[in-house]
């Protein structure tokens, strides 16, 4: 298997309910190194739930989840059986998640938001972590904000800091859950620009977004979710020229917003 084809994330036959509500009915996804996959679809179709299960914030009911071939959960007798706590903590290092509302730590400076997780992970001392954080901040155009506190930043700047915070841990794959939805329209551009630059550098990403044009331009693959199942999937060209009426309707509606 060549480096290019290494599978980073593999989800197979994920099922997830909340009480009686079946949110994910059957979902499978393989993401190879360097790929950008976008997940689109109407509200409540289960997009966030997929990312939350993949990032171990939520437990699947059934299905398998693995990173780089190492299992976080296996399906046994119609139920997901998760690996040990220690094993899961190790797998945590493979992925990062960028939240819709940033979730920066308000009592930490920008710099400490980025460095503390790195230092706690134990691979770098404080000076190395700070160097890394500063170069990331510089790359994201936030060099002069290292000592600021989150409340002093605009939404777009906060989201860029949260991207830097995730990147500092050098994840193999980065998940985005509507990274621009909490932002004023004039601020989405700066965040999309950062994500675009990550794509140019072949960062492996799964992006849940309502930005249709952005998804179309950036993605290697687009998945259209509806009511907990994949309603359409393919290259941007395939999905945007689909015959599926629901998909066409959705894309048309969102794009003209």
């Amino acid at each position: 298997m060549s480096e290019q084809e290494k599978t980073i994330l593999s989800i197979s036959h994920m099922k997830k309910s909340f009480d009686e509500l079946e949110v994910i009915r059957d979902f499978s996804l393989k993401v190879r190194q360097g790929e950008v996959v976008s997940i689109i679809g109407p509200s409540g179709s289960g997009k966030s739930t997929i990312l939350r299960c993949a990032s171990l914030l939520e437990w699947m009911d059934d299905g398998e989840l693995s990173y780089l071939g190492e299992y976080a959960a296996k399906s046994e007798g119609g139920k997901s059986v998760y690996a040990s706590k220690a094993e899961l903590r190790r797998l945590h290092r493979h992925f990062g998640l960028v939240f819709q509302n940033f979730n920066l730590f308000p009592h930490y400076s920008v710099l400490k938001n980025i460095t503390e997780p790195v230092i706690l992970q134990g691979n770098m001392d404080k000076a190395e972590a700070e160097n890394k954080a500063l170069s990331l901040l510089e790359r994201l155009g936030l060099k002069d904000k290292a000592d600021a506190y989150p409340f002093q930043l605009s939404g777009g700047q906060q989201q860029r800091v949260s991207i830097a915070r995730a990147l500092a841990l050098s994840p193999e794959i980065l998940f985005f859950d509507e990274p621009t939805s909490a932002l004023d329209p004039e601020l989405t551009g700066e965040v999309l620009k950062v994500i675009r630059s990550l794509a140019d550098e072949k960062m492996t990403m799964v992006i849940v977004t309502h930005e249709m044009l952005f998804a179309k331009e950036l993605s290697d693959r687009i998945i259209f979710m509806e009511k907990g199942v994949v309603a359409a999937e393919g290259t941007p060209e395939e999905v945007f020229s689909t015959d599926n009426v629901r998909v066409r309707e959705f894309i048309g509606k969102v794009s003209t917003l």
Partner: protein
Amino acid sequence: MNLETMVLQLGSGMLVTVEIFVLTLIFSLPLGLLVSFGRMSKNKVVMTISKIYISIMRGTPLMLQLLVVYFGPYYLFRIKIGTGYRMVAVIIGFVLNYAAYFAEIYRSGIESMPVGQYEAARVLGYSSGQTFFRIIFPQVVKRILPPVTNEVITLVKDTSLAFALAVAEMFTMAKQVASAQTTVVPLMAAGLFYYVFNLLVAFCMERLEKSMAYYR
């Protein structure tokens, strides 16, 4: 009794008051955190016990609780109690009572934290202990400072209840001196003392609040 012995007696009373105040805070602040964990526990038994404990401590007079702590060992278990136990009983009674109030304050603060803070920490690889002590607790402290200040100011005044166990704190001494000398001056001095003590407390808490004002 000359002025000097009067001042000395009041002074020793002051020290005892400060001692009750400081010891109560030192023990009840951490104990209150433990009780709040119990109150929020998923374990039904632990949760119910904590809830009953808090409800009794908040629902009965502190003076009564002090008497129970002091006389309880003798009436319940026939354990002989010496006079040295008085001060200990006062501290135990105050700590148990204030821990209950602090527990409810901690709980409201902890429950007001957005779940996103926990989730971000988890995804970034923080253990649950790291999440609590590095991310959650510092922010909770900032949020609960105003109600804690209220409790601490009440505590200053409540210390005079130690009088119920004849502990020679400020109020007991002032009353004693006042009746011996048939003058209200000692009582006024005591009042002034509590007032200045509380001004000091308010000043310190304000400083503390300011020290956390660097973020929102």
